[in-house]
């Protein structure tokens, strides 16, 4: 399926996704969108791991294992984040980060 696609294409895709994620994390105002940006970052890491594993070290599966663990941990992280977001929605009736300004300086 991926015959003929060189490794660096995957790495470029991973890099673009990573920085799109960072950009989204820094500019978005909605907490759920920020959470999606973090998922982008983690998935770019997954692409990197899988691509490296498939192209450079196909006889070991370490990169694949790492990817599986990242997915599992990301799920745990997201569930805690969503729980906290629901809690803050109950307090503020809003999930805009600009409203979370009780503590500054």
């Amino acid at each position, binding site marked *: 399926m991926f015959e003929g696609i060189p490794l660096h294409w995957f790495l470029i895709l*991973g890099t673009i996704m*990573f920085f799109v*994620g*960072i950009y989204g*994390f820094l500019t978005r105002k909605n*907490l759920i969108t*920020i*959470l999606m940006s*973090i998922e982008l*970052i*983690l998935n*770019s*890491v997954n692409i*990197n*791991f899988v691509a*490296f*594993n498939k192209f*450079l*070290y196909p006889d*070991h599966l*370490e*990169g694949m*294992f*790492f990817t599986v*663990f*990242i997915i599992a*941990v990301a799920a*745990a*992280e997201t569930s*805690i*984040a969503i*729980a*906290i*977001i629901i*809690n*803050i929605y109950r*307090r*503020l009736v809003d999930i805009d980060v600009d409203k*979370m300004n*009780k*503590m*500054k300086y």
Partner: protein
Amino acid sequence: MLIMRHELLLIVITVILLVVEIFLPNTRKRKIILPAILLMAAVTVIGFFPGTPGILFGGMYQSTQLSMLLKNILNVGVLIIFIQSVDWLKQDQNKEKISEFYLLMLSTLIGMNYMISSGNFLMFYLGLELATIPIAALAAYERFKEKSAEAGVKLIFISALSSGILLYGLSMIYGTTGTMYFADVAPLITGAPLQVLAFIFFFAGMAFKISLVPFHLWTADVYEGSPVNVASYLSVISKGAAVFIFTIILYTVFTKIAVLWSEVLYVIIILTITVGNLFAMRQQNLKRFLAFSSIAQAGFILLGIISQSQVGMTTVIYFVLVYIFSNLGAFGVVGIISNRTGKETINDYDGLYRTNPKLSLVMMLALFSLAGIPPLAGFFGKFFLFTAGAKQGYYILVLIALINTIISLYYYLLVIKAMFLNNSDQPIAYFKSDNYTRLGLILCVAGIVVIGFTSSVYELIYNLSFGLY
């Protein structure tokens, strides 16, 4: 099985507390406090028995005398936090979720233990996540306070971002070396451009966790919003564990690019100490004040790492040990006063000595130890750090650190001046603290005073440490 003793014991008591929690009716949750503390004390004591070093899971988990010592240090810190938090947990607002506090805190401790013992980046990552995710839930523990929820949001998003950045670095390390084992990665680190980039990402991720300066902005907000005991846990145990594993990885994995990372650290140290100190001066809220002081202390800790020698690592561990006792003392006093009166600013502490002399004395000792006043342990910690730095020829760096010590003395003395010299029309009224708080504060004071005078502690750590050369 005995090799994983620390983790297994912690898992056992976590499960015991979980089962007890299930069968306790909601009205009698307070009964879990004493068993939890006793179990934690038992684990701490058992941890000190000599154990057998060894390797498990094909090198993923490695237990050495050093890692056992580090786990014992963390255990002691957590035990003190457990004792100090009783007064706060007994408040009415927390009566239904007391056991959650213990369960979450113990699971983070298990994560830190695995992180310290890791011999593989996968194990390291899992330990790191287990250590950070539950803390976010703890920061948002006081559900009905807006500030607490805000602290939880800030902490979970920053820690998720930092682990994303760290993982991106790890993926590049995997790409250039093809393995994730520390021992196999180390000889393959050659300083190739991709590896340097990988190191920068890894460093940035860890810097978030240790709250070094360009990455420190979350610290003060999270400390102010979260409950005092959680803030003390974040500033002491969480930071200490991250510093330990950071030192171990720098000294075992990135040995060949030591020139590079010492340059990075050089700049970061100057920034961290200076910015931390300057911002601490203008704080009115004591939790924010302690947050910035802990940022500055993290800069001092890095001074030990940069010296790259056996002495350097010894001073890092010794300083963290001392820092645990001094910072927990300060946070303990802030916590009990915040629980009883709800007052948290420096001006509220005016005339505290008249009404609560014992508390102000403990606070004074803790702050003097943080500042590094001679007879106390904090002085020896800083003294050893500076000697280790000067031995490697970092004279300018040590000079800057010394100047910053003097600046830090100014703002620590501001609090002491408020307590002892300032007069107030409405000082904090006299109150009697409960026995748990007293025990916790006595343990801290004992640590501050005794560790400074027993050189055997330093020698013990020195014999277990290692350096680059």
